[in-house]
C-alpha cells in the first residue's frame, strides 16, 4: 500500500475536527489554545500534502506557507498565553464561560 493524498487529507481532517472540538468544548482558556494549535497544524498537514501531491509537482509554496503558519502560530501562542496570565491575575480564573463582561 502506498500513501496517497487522500490518506494525508483524512488524517488532517480528523486532526482538524479534534482541534475544533477541543477549542469549542474546553472551559480552560489554555486548553482552547491547544485545540487551536491542533487545527493550525491540521492545515499545515494539508498544505504540505498538496505541495507534494498536487499539480504543482513539488512546488515550494506549500512549504513556505507552512513555515509562515508555524511562525505566526508561535507568536499567537505567546500573545494568547500572556493574555491568559493577565486575565488570571485580574479575575483569578481562566474559565472562558466566566469571561462574559461584554454581554449586556
Amino acid at each position: 500500500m502506498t500513501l496517497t493524498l487522500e490518506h494525508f487529507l483524512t488524517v488532517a481532517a480528523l486532526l482538524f475536527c479534534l482541534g475544533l472540538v477541543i477549542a469549542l468544548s474546553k472551559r480552560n482558556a489554555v486548553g482552547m489554545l491547544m485545540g487551536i494549535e491542533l487545527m493550525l497544524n491540521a492545515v499545515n498537514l494539508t498544505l504540505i500534502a498538496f505541495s507534494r501531491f498536487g499539480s504543482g509537482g513539488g512546488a515550494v509554496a506549500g512549504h513556505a506557507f507552512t513555515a509562515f503558519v508555524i511562525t505566526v502560530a508561535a507568536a499567537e501562542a505567546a500573545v494568547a498565553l500572556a493574555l491568559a496570565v493577565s486575565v488570571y491575575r485580574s479575575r483569578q480564573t481562566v474559565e472562558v464561560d466566566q469571561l462574559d463582561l461584554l454581554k449586556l
Partner: protein
Amino acid sequence: MDVPGVSEAVLWAIILCPLAAFTAIALYLRKLPKLAGWLSIAAITASFALALVALVDTLGADGRAATHTHDWFHAGPLQLSLGVRLDGLTAVMLVVVTSVALLVQVYSQGYMERDPGYGRYYAWMSLFITAMLGLVLADNLLMLFVFWELVGLSSYLLIGFWFHKPSAAAAAKKAFIVTRIGDLGLLAAMLLIWTRGGTLAIDEIHELVLTGALSGTTLTLFGLGLFAGAVGKSAQFPLHVWLPDAMEGPTPVSALIHAATMVAAGVYLMARFFPVLEASPDARETVAWIGAATVAVGAALALVQTDLKRVLAYSTISQLGYMMLALGVFGYAVAVFHLFTHAFFKALLFLGSGSVNHATNTFDMRRMGGLRTVMPLTFWTFLIGTLSLAGVFPLAGFWSKDEILLEAWHQNRALYAIAAVAAFATALYMFRAVFMTFFGTYKGGEPVDPSDEDSHFHGDPAHPHESGRVMTWPLLALAAGAVAAGWWAWGREFQHFVEGAVPADALHHAPAFSYGIAIASSLIAVAGIAAAWAIYQRRLVDSAEIRRTAYPLALLLERKFFLDDLYERAFAAGLFQRGWNRLVAAFDAFAVDGAVNGAGWLGMQSGRVLRHAQTGQVQLYGAALAAGAVVAAIIVLATGS
C-alpha cells in the same frame, strides 16, 4: 471677404485682464485696498486698450466676424467647444463695456473711499466686468450662458454689497431670483436648439435659421426662450421689478449695471440672435409688444418717483424697452446703437446722482434743490446727460431714439404712438428730476446720523460742495460721450458696421432718415421739457393738484401697478410659501425625515431582538462560526462548483 485679423490672444487677454485682477485681489490683496483699486483700474485700462485694437481691426473688416473655436470636451455624441468671436457687434460692446467700466472704476476711487469693503468692492467689480466681456466674446451659446450666469452672480454680490443692510440683502436676492426665472427660458432655448439643430455655435445657429432647416414652431419657441432670458436680464415688463430695487447697491455699481454690463446683456443676446427674430414673426411681434409695454411702464413709473436713483432706474427700464421695441420692428442696428449711446448718458446720470449723494447724503429729491450753484460741474454734466436722454438735437440720444421712432413708424403706428408718448414722458420726468435737484432752494439734505455705523458719509450735508476731481473727471469724459457718440451714425456708418455681424440676407432694409419724424420727436422732447418747467419750476400747475385730480392713476403708479404686491402676495406668499413650500415641507417631514428616522427605528428594533444572540460565551461564537463554515462547505459541494 476679409475678416478681423487681430490675434486670438488679444481677445482672450481682454477677458483675462480683469479676471487676473479679480483673482489677485480676492486671494492676496483684500487687506491692501489701495493697491487693489489701482490693480483693478490697470487691468481694465489694459482691456480697454485691447478692445480699441479689436475695434479698429474690425472697422477695417467692415464688422464681419472672425471666430476662433477650440474643442473643449467630448462625451459621446456631445461635443462642446470653447471659443471667441469678434465682429462689429462684439467690438462695439467691448468698447462700451470697457470704457464705461474704466470710468466707473476711476470714479469709485472717490465714491467708495473709506468704505471698509473697498478691496472686496474692486474684486467683485473686476469679476463683473470679466463676466460681461466673456459674454460678448463667446462664440457659442453654452459659453455665453456660463458668463451670463456669472454676470448674474456678480450683480448679486454687488447689489448686496452692503449686505448688513437688510434692504440690500433683500434687493440682491430679488435681482438674482427674478433674473433666474428668465434664465430658465434661455436654458430651455439652448436645450431646444441642441436637440433640434445639434449645435450651440452662434454661426451654425444663424445658418440653421437662414437655410430654413428648423420648423417655424421650433424657431418661435427658440426665439421666445431667448427672449425670456433677455426679459429677466434686461428688466423687461413683467420681470422689471428687480431693477429699481437694485439701487441698494453702491451708485457706481448701478451705473455699471444700467449702462454697460448687466442689463445690456439681454439686448445683446437678442441682437446676437436677430436672424431668429427675422425668421419668426410671432417671436418678433412678442418682442416688439413687450418692449413697448416696458417703455410705457418704465416711463410712467419714473414720473412719480421721489428718489433720484429710482427715477433713473425706471428710465433705464423704459430705454431698454425702446431697444427691444427696435429689435421687434427690424431695427437691429438701431437697437445696438441706442444701447451704445444710452450706455454713455445713463452712466453719466448715475455717476452724477452719486456725486449729488456725496454732497447731500441722500437720494431723496425732496430734500435737495438749488445744487446748480454749489455743484456746477455735476449740474452741467447731469444736464447734458438729461438732454441726451430726452433726445434733444444734436446730442447722442437724439440720433438713436429718433431712429427707433422711425423704424416703429414704418412697421406699426400703434407702437410708434406708445414710443412717442413715452418720449414725452421721458423729457418730463428727467427735467422734473433736474428741476427738483438743481433748481430752487436747497432743502438741507439728510443730516448725518452719528449712531449709524454703516454710513461712511464725510462732510456736512447742510453745506454741500462739489465732489473731488476723481469723481468729476469721469463725469466730463462721459459727458463728451453723451454729446458725441451719436455722430457715429452719420451716413449710416455705425449701422453698416454692426450689420456686418449678422449674415447679410438676414437683414431688413432700414428706412431712410426722415425729417418729419426727426422734427416731431424733437418737438415732443421740447414739449416734455416745457411741461416739466411749467409744473416743477414755475409751478403754473401744482403737482399735488394733479395728483388729487387723477388720484386712482397716481395711486396705481405710486404702488408700481401693484406688481410687487402681486408677486409677493400671490406668488411668493401664496403660491410658494403657503402652497408649494408647505407641500415640500410636508414631504421633507414625512418622506425624507420618515426614511431617516425609520432606518434608525429599524436598527434599534432589530438590535433589540438580535442582542439575545450576544451571550458573551466565546465558545458559542466559535461553534456558530464552525457551523456556518460547514453549511457553506455543503452548499459549495452540493452545487458542484
